């Protein structure tokens, strides 16, 4: 079997992976680092992030306030040591991107401009108009081109982690262009494969976001943490699920129901004011806004659309000039994909799946419990996001923890032995035979990829949507277990070795089924409501039993096991989440401490 070898291997070439690759190169230029990505890196989904990246930079702001907003936004499930490190390092990382050329929007005096964002008590979100993720990804990708030591495997898909002698030693991957299956060995591996929004039917996420890295680690016996916490973004376009950024509300947009009423005032989110108020109304956290939508639907106050109920986002009062300057992509998306102009028309929106708070369990340096294996970005769970991520925290997260994981993986590789165990090559050969047998030969199967994928998406949305119950989750778990069986019987039309995208879809589907199963089982076991996990049969937060991370693993016998790990509390004891105009008590105490 063909084998190539590196010191540090990145799986995934989005923002976290590219930032990690640069960190490896800067930690030790002699390390052979490589990035494997199933798409060309500049196609990665970081590209679609719109609104901005949070980082304390202005004189009226403080690290403690960013910590408090993040922790209360996460309903106290964040690890506070991780949040403190994150908040401290975010401004440095954003500044580093500025030095690499990121075209941040500016104030008239040339300093970085910041905007308001949901759940944030101060304006601290850096932005590049409303294409922040696009500019961050392209800046990172173009900057990696300057490092000759960063090698790339573009359009390769990783199917298995190679583990022997108690440490991760590389991966098996398939090159799409040629169909070649080979082992790529390394002394340390960092998984940066992003989220898994495609497990659900309506999502802001790109087609590539199929939870591959989470599934790889889960199959290797590694732990996934807090998988029940999935974020609905309150403002996606119906049908496509395309994101209309929170920045649209930060700039002053209103959410209105079918009567033109700013309904959020009925859900303990403050009083409507003409101008946006921080941590209030439309600038509340995403979990609460998405939940309010369901309540409006139950009250019959949403509007019927061809793809289900919607409410409306009203930007008309902002005027054409501000929309063009601050929200040009929102206008472009509405014009091109909905045939409407936000300058004169209301935008129909609904909650759509946006972000995975849970993921591969890591420590504060991106290390997983499997020696040699690291993870960063949306696929990982450190956790700084807890039960609900605040908007604009994910872009600095990929930078801070991408850099930390890169540095830690480089140091691990420096100390690791050179030799690759023969057992690893034997594993790789087995994996190649499995792939060829299951997919590339005529199998006699009868199931189509698309049929199972649609059934999975329906089951997960019905069972583990914005509101969940024991029976809805049990039904979903049952359906998923049947779909897992049916997926063994998939028949491909395509047996070609050249750019076989049907094979890729089948492999992605098996990843999604594993991730979906973890989401549903983790949700079933958490019998409380917290942040984005709302159980109508257990409507209260239960700190006595569940101020804890769920940790789901697959045992060697193939069963699922769920444990709970403590949450790290440093300075912010669990309190009530207060939004609206009143100042929460805790923040005053912390500020005066």
């Amino acid at each position, binding site marked *: 079997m063909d084998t190539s070898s590196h010191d540090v291997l990145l799986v995934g070439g989005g923002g976290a992976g590219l930032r990690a690759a640069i960190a490896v190169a800067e930690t030790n230029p002699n390390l052979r680092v490589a990035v494997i990505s199933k*798409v060309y890196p500049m196609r990665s989904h970081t590209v679609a992030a719109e609104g901005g990246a949070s980082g304390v930079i202005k004189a009226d702001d403080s690290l403690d306030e960013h910590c408090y907003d993040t922790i209360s936004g996460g309903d106290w499930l964040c690890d506070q040591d991780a949040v403190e490190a994150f908040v401290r390092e975010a401004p440095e990382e954003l500044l580093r991107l500025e*030095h*690499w*050329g990121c075209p941040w929007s500016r104030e008239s005096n040339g300093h970085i401009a910041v905007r308001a964002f949901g759940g944030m008590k101060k304006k601290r979100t850096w932005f590049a108009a409303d294409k922040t993720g*696009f500019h961050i990804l392209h800046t990172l990708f173009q*900057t990696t*081109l300057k490092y000759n030591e960063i090698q790339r495997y573009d359009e390769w898909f990783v199917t298995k982690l190679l583990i022997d002698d108690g440490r991760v030693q590389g991966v098996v991957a398939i090159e799409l262009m040629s169909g070649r299956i080979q082992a790529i060995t390394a002394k340390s591996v960092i998984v940066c494969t992003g989220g898994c929004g495609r497990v659900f039917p309506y999502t802001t996420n790109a087609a590539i976001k199929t939870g591959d890295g989470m599934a790889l680690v889960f199959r290797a016996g590694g732990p996934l943490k807090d998988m029940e916490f999935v974020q609905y973004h309150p403002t996606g376009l119906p049908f496509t699920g395309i994101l209309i950024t929170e920045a649209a509300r930060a700039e002053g947009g209103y959410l209105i129901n079918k009567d033109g009423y700013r309904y959020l005032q009925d859900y303990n989110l403050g009083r409507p004011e003409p101008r946006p108020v921080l941590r209030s109304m439309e600038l509340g956290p995403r979990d609460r806004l998405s939940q309010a939508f369901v309540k409006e639907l139950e009250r019959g106050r949403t509007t019927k659309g061809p793809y289900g109920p919607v409410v409306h986002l009203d930007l008309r009062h902002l005027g054409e000039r501000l929309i063009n300057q601050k929200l040009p992509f929102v206008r472009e998306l509405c014009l*091109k994909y909905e045939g409407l102009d936000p300058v004169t028309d209301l935008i129909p929106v609904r909650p759509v799946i946006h972000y995975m708070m849970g993921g591969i369990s890591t420590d504060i340096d991106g290390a997983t419990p499997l020696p040699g294996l690291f993870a960063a970005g949306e696929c990982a769970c450190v956790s700084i996001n807890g039960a609900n991520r605040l908007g604009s925290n994910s872009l600095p997260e990929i930078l801070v923890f991408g850099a930390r994981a890169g540095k830690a993986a480089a140091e691990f590789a420096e100390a690791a032995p050179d030799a690759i165990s023969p057992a690893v090559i034997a594993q790789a050969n087995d994996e190649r035979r499995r792939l060829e047998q299951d997919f590339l030969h005529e199998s006699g199967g009868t199931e189509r990829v698309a049929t199972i994928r649609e059934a999975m998406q329906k089951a997960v949305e019905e069972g583990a949507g914005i509101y969940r119950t024991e029976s809805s989750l049990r039904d979903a778990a049952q359906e998923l277990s049947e779909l897992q069986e049916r997926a063994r019987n998939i028949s491909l039309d*395509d047996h070609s070795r050249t750019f076989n995208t049907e094979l890729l879809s089948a492999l992605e589907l098996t990843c999604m089924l594993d991730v979906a199963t973890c989401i549903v089982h983790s949700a079933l076991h958490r019998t409380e409501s917290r942040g984005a996990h709302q159980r109508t049969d257990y409507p209260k937060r239960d700190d006595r039993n569940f101020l804890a991370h769920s940790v789901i693993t697959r045992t060697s016998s193939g069963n699922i096991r769920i444990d709970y790990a403590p949450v790290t509390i440093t300075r912010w004891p669990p309190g009530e989440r207060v939004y609206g105009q009143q100042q929460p008590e805790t923040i005053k105490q912390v500020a005066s401490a």
Partner: protein
Amino acid sequence: MNIPMIEMQVARYSPERDAQPYLQRFEVPVKPEWVILDALNYIKDKLDGTLTFRWSCRMGICGSCGYMVNNEPKLGCATFLSQYLPGPIKIEPLSNFPVVRDLVVEISEFLEKLKRVKPWLIHENGNGAGEYLQTPSQLEEFRQHSMCINCLLCYAACPISGLDPVFIGPAALALAQRYNKDSRDQGAEERMAILSHPEGIWGCTFVGECTKVCPKHVDPAGAIQQYKLAAAMEGIKQFLMPWGQRQEER
């Protein structure tokens, strides 16, 4: 409600099977909100799992889904089916690139060209502390050229890229100009040394097709013209000044 159908003629080519590309016909429903990409996914999911094409974000920002639609380069996700009624619609791989399979083209050559123009910020202080200040009007100088999503529609439209594969081409040149015009960058001279070679900018005959097809209004043609002007000035300076003096200036 009666959903109209449209005939899609999709280019098929498999190097393992076919000597030549050919068009295959499919009947696809035209829902009002469907774009070309929805039609291709309909074919792949329901009719023929072997149809091969790239796509990802379906919101015009990842740059994966450029195809020739009735001989024009378009983003599959940003082109509505209904505008082609009653049909047929012909979908082919982007022109001027080698075809890997069906609608997938080989773009590694472009990645090489991208690297050659040094598309990163060159600043003598490297990672020094503090913000590099930049006013909104300085940002505006290069903002337009920083919007390129690498979808390569401009290469498919460019007659020179078709004739001369070594021509660096519109997107990469616009990117070079994006950094040259960035007030924080000090690398224009370094880039000029690469680009003023014949295969750099001089190949462009200013047909302007690149700017016409660009879905993000990057205006590569404008960038190339500015570049030529700068290079011509540089050429005149070289002619007028003795070599040693020019070295000292740097």
